[in-house]
């Protein structure tokens, strides 16, 4: 049986690429979508050589929301699974100083991802099947001084995914919210992350594949994050506001 494609939005990211490999290994054709998609040619060849599946490149700009309808319409085949790994962290310091930078972070983590998933959701709903996967963040669970611009946008995205899931649950479309916790990627390179709390991109990809298989709704990649965030969410605000966290 030939499998249907998996679309990776934000394919240049380490998590996006790891997810592409994971689903290609399972025999899915892969659609890699990113800005300057042509520069992913080597990765495309790599996927085809390793897994013997077809991989294609698709120009995609998460912030150019007006292009999202035609982007989906132009896909050679509607994917069975779409994974949104688009994201931009920026630095909190810059986000505080430069409001334009902050807006770019907000748009990259919320507006863009929500827009493209909204378009795909409508197509999937028509077909009555498909899986939408949004890579959000534990940073969206509670705003903290050190990254609340990024966190607030991820909070919005998490709420969007939750609502989408609620809307589509009865329509045969499955929506997965992924909360990876720390991941060793380009985004976090140079940061001093605790090893026990830090996943590799391939671990995130494995967790996503498992979530699709078992139809999970919200996943933390490393279970310890469920506990960490439970604690963080439950610290009374009066104490939380004075904490350095």
């Amino acid at each position, binding site marked *: 049986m030939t499998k249907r494609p998996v679309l990776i939005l934000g394919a240049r990211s380490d998590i996006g690429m790891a997810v592409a490999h994971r689903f290609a290994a399972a025999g899915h054709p892969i659609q890699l979508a990113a800005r300057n998609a042509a520069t992913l040619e080597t990765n495309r*060849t790599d996927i085809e050589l390793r897994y*013997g599946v077809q991989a294609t490149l698709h120009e995609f700009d998460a912030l150019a929301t007006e292009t999202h309808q035609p982007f989906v319409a132009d896909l050679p085949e509607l994917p069975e699974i779409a994974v949104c790994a688009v994201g931009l962290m920026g630095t909190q310091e810059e986000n505080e100083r430069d409001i334009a930078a902050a807006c770019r972070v907000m748009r990259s983590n919320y507006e863009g991802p929500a827009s493209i998933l909204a378009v795909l959701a409508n197509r999937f709903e028509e077909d009555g099947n498909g899986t939408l996967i949004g890579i959000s963040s534990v940073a969206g669970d509670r705003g903290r001084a050190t990254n609340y611009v990024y966190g607030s946008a991820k909070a919005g995205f998490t709420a969007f995914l939750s609502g989408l899931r609620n809307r589509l649950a009865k329509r045969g479309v499955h929506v997965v919210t992924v909360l990876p916790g720390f991941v060793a990627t380009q985004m976090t390179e140079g940061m001093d992350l605790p090893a026990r709390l830090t996943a590799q991109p391939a671990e995130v990809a494995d967790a996503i594949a498992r979530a699709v298989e078992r139809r999970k709704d919200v996943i933390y990649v490393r279970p310890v994050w469920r506990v960490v965030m439970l604690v963080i969410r439950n610290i009374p605000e009066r104490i939380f506001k004075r904490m350095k966290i």
Partner: protein
Amino acid sequence: MKLSGWGRYPVIDAQVHVPRDIDALRRLVLSEPSVIARGNGRAYGDSAINRGATIEMRHLNRMLAFDPDTGQLVTEAGVMLGDVISAFLPRGWFPTVTPGTKFVTIGGAVAADVHGKNHHKDGSFRQYVDWIDVMGADGEIVRCSPEERAELFDNTLGGMGLTGIVVRAAIRLRPVESGWIRQTTIPAPDLKAAMAAFEATQDATYSVAWIDCLGTGANLGRSLVILGEHAALADLPPDRAQEPYVTKAKRQRTVPFDFPSFALNRFSVRAFNALYYRAGARKSGTQLVDWDSYFYPLDAILRWNRIYGRKGFAQFQCVFPLDRSEQGLSALLETISREGAGSFLAVLKRFGPQESPFSFPMEGYTLALDFPITARILALLERMDRITIDHGGRFYLAKDSRMTAATLRAADPRSETFRGMREQQGLLSRFRSAQAERLSI
């Protein structure tokens, strides 16, 4: 960050860079005082460590092209042999030369010019490298092969990363009909018998011996010589012949913590060796083994290097010329056995002929051993160095972590030529590892 090789000795504080593309790599080569490339860190000592700038190649790990007519695979240097097997064994291809772990990168295999159990027949890794792309001290990438820029090619295969950074390679895979190996075990009661078994089985594709280095007297050099052939379809029972490339995925186990240093001692190793020999001797004859168990038995135990404890361990691997092998090996085994310093993993192998500027293998016998690091062992290793030199032997740099420059020079006059070439080509100050500094190469 603290870096070490697979032997976890020595540990060196080094600056690590992880470039994501060729441009980033070039910037490092041009801007850092000196650099060394690092693959998956499976060299045992300090071959892939540069205090100022160690360059991890793991992001340059894409497969670029494959030609099913010739079996030629082109990859970036950070691709691991295990990735090659995962991708190509299901299509009927296997690396032509593989060392005892699949967790090495192609770049690392080129740099150490690794050998496998088929060296006596097929030679070292270099025999199946069609060309390599090497970034030189000027940041430019040049392609070299046995025909084109042959000197660079020859020196880079076995050059321990000291001639430039290998960024891409074209290697040739061998066609195989299955993922199974027909394994034949020959018990050999002593060293003479083991060597006779190797000489009598030169036609076998793969051969290697596990050797009990605590055997004394009549048991000195007691071994299990293990031969292997890729199983053809006709060799498989019908149920396996249906899916000849599918072997059961092995469960990965890991060593969760450092063993205390007393866990491995002459008594536990002696007991293990005696049991292992008897079990092997009982199983002698031919059986079908999956490729992973045959080539990579230790890979199934992740982080097995922890059994030697926190202080790490040293590998010792030397090769003796054919005519002096028996004497040299006997002298080494006697010394080790007298010391009661049992090596848990001791491997003996017959090499075929090889002439190359700085690669390890030459025709003769190679012995590989490992020992936990202690002051007594370090002194023993010095004596073993001496014995090796006295019998015309030389050392494998991918395993070395503690030799002196004088030892290397005495064992391997090629090291001076190699250094001279580096100096003359302007490579000496640009590409250096902690090992290169220690050994003055």
